[in-house]
């Protein structure tokens, strides 16, 4: 039976949504009963429940700073955590997490997951996050001595490495892409895996001013939210025309096919009206429907995906596909949240991804050189200006990179912009212009 009374937490067992409290309780119980030779405190889940109950009473967190814990030779992958009431809750005195690098787009075999479970029940709390916000498998809570043991078993038995934390490359992630999505403009999983392997050193050994994140979206729908969450956001797009199946279009207008793959089935929105729902909503007004033929002026299309999303069976992305590369997204601290800024409007994304890797490395060199401690790339770009960033990337300025040209006239001209430079002789000037 439970070690601590948890009247408040018990309230969270009610309601239909899966209860993490119920799940924790079942885990606590199974640790009670198990004959597995547990290396982490048997009562850690019990104590975690107790600590949570106490926190629910106090409304102030009871965890302390992590301190520096980790595995030998790595600068990341482990988050240290200590409880501020160790006497009362010895099971979570030290309760560190490991970040385990998930496979691209998070398909699993049960065989693999069972190995993870077996290891984590034995050497950890048996609690996980599937998954963390960056994408890792989070093994939530174990003691300091277990860290190396777990790392050894992960690498030797599971052929599995840790993910990132600290001032290094963070675990890259991607959308499901070509594995199960018709909109994928490039192979997000292949690139994500390739970049993760290529930059293992940057991922495990902090050499950056601060964290750096890659995320790979297969198309502008942005299912892995890269534009908001990655220092480098790679978002699929295409150059040529949207492919149209006119008969399928008619099937939509005729009502045989449900718009948006049936995404709006929960409410009666009336019969599908292609004019109202597609043509009029196209942000560039580049579409036309004459009652039996759909026309798209592709030159004006900005590939927002709307029409394709609404009629996936009738419209397909183009064939000349690649990606837009954007840089600088981050959370609010310090300068305020940022989304990534369009830097390379279009790049082909094909193995071995030389062009993209060259770019990444130019950016890293610049950031490592100029970035202050704990300054994200996006903040550096703001501090030194986007023009400077373009020079670093060896790219020409392009209006596609901006929403609008500057409205202030404060151009920072360089001396080389002015024929003859800046050197002038005041006395020459005074010959023509007396004081």
């Amino acid at each position, binding site marked *: 039976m439970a070690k601590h009374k948890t009247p408040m*937490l*018990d*309230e969270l067992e*009610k309601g*239909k*949504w*899966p209860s*993490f409290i119920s*799940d*924790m309780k*079942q*885990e606590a119980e*199974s640790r009670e009963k198990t004959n597995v030779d547990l290396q982490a405190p048997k009562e850690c889940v019990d104590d975690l429940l107790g600590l949570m109950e106490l*926190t629910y009473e106090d*409304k*102030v967190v*009871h965890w302390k700073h992590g301190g520096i814990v980790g595995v*030998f030779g790595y600068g990341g992958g482990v988050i240290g955590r200590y409880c501020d009431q160790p006497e009362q809750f010895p099971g979570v005195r030290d309760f560190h*997490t490991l970040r385990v*690098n*998930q*496979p691209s787009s*998070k*398909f699993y075999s*049960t065989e693999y*997951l069972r190995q993870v*479970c077996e290891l984590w029940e034995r050497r950890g709390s*048996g*609690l*996980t996050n*599937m998954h963390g916000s960056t994408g890792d498998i989070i093994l939530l809570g174990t003691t300091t001595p277990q860290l190396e*043991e777990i790392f050894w078993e992960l690498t*030797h038995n599971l052929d*599995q*490495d840790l*993910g990132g934390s600290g001032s290094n490359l963070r675990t890259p992630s991607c*959308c499901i892409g070509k*594995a199960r999505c018709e909109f994928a403009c490039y192979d997000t999983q292949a690139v994500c895996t390739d970049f*993760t392997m290529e930059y*293992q050193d940057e991922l495990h050994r902090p050499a950056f001013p601060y964290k750096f994140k890659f995320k790979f979206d297969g198309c*502008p*729908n*942005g299912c892995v*939210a890269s534009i*908001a969450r990655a220092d480098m956001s790679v978002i699929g797009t295409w150059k040529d025309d949207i492919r149209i199946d006119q008969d399928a279009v008619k099937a939509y207008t005729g009502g045989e096919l449900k718009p*948006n793959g*049936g*995404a*709006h*089935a*929960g*409410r009666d929105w009336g019969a599908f009206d292609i004019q109202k*729902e597609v043509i009029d909503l196209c942000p560039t007004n580049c579409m036309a429907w004459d009652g039996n033929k759909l026309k798209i002026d592709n030159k004006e299309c900005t590939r*927002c995906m*709307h029409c394709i999303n609404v009629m996936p069976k009738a419209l397909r992305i183009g064939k000349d596909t690649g990606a837009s590369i954007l840089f600088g*997204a981050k*959370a609010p*601290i310090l300068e*305020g949240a940022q*989304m990534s800024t369009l830097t390379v409007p279009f790049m082909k994304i094909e193995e071995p991804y030389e062009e993209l890797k060259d770019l990444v490395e130019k950016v890293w060199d610049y950031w490592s050189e100029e970035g202050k401690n704990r300054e994200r790339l996006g903040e550096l770009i703001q501090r030194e200006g986007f023009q400077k960033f373009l020079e670093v990337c060896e790219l020409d300025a392009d209006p596609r990179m901006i929403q609008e040209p500057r409205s202030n006239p404060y151009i920072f001209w360089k001396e080389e912009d002015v024929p003859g430079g800046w050197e002038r002789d005041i006395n020459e000037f005074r010959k023509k212009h007396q004081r």
Partner: protein
Amino acid sequence: MGYDPKDPLKDRITDIGPRDYKEFLPSVIKENYGKWLYHEILEPGVLVHVSETGAKVYTVRVGGCRLMSVTHIREICEIADKHCDGYLRFTTRNNVEFMVDDESKLKPLMEDLESREFAGGSKKFPRGGTGAGLTNIVHTQGWLHCHTPAIDASGVVKCVMDELYEDFQDMRFPAQVRISLACCLNMCGAVHCSDIAILGIHRMPPMLDHEHLDNMCEIPLAIAACPTGAIKPATVDGKKSVAVKNERCMFCGNCYTMCPSMPLADEEGSGVALLVGGKISNRITEPKFSKVVVPFLYNEPPRWPSTVDAIKKILNAYVDGAQKYERLGDWAERIGWERFFEKTGLPFTGHLIDDYRFAYTTWRQSTQFKF
């Protein structure tokens, strides 16, 4: 054999990265990789994707609370073995997807999932999260594992999802609605572009543990961490420490991240802010940031009624007022923010007026407004 503390470097393996995703793809996925033609949502939580080979994959998406025990994961594996040849996946929003390659396998799978409940009575595998409905809430650690949270994460999420459970299993919204939670301004969920963001914030400047500050912190780092330059070096009772210009503090918690002797969290001071109207996709309109519409609500464990209530007000107004395909933020901009506050019944206060770096760009330089 195994790890040898006496010789840590023995046979050490490093830099091997993640497992190759190809090992983990079910055969229908592997065979039709990159060949998908289109998809359909058969019912909430059930997708079919059709390949140019004619093959189909049926996906059943179920809500997961991402805090999962190994016991629960083993149960998931058991299901996957029974119905899905031993494969499954997790989505970018912590839902679980079970896939089968034949329609006939759908029903048994769905019934099996349906049938499973936790001891407390909650569903283990609620089906849904697709289309123009509500999907899972992405969230962060909260009181369960971090040291800087202003609010809990998993608990708040549970309360909101319980209340909106029907909408997870329905597709009655004008467009998809993404709710996200981050428990402090570090914003680990990067919730700044969500239709609705639940954010933990502090309202009190850090306490100063002068007696220990110098031992526990790198004072220069703490000073440098402050974006407003509110922290200055100081000597208190002969001890090296810092002083904080409270009126300059914007409660970001950076100092505490650098220095454990400067805790901010407080029962009165810490709570929930709500942001709305952000989006990620480039569909129709460009991605946008969420805007703060509720500056502060108290932590109300265990069920956070005020937070849940405010979110329902926002969703109801949105569902009533928005047009098909219109995201929450696009709706608010179309009707105007003055109308947003009127229709949601949320009070507008000075706290919601920007006074940070780009403040001017958010004020109204026009005579266009609605009475």
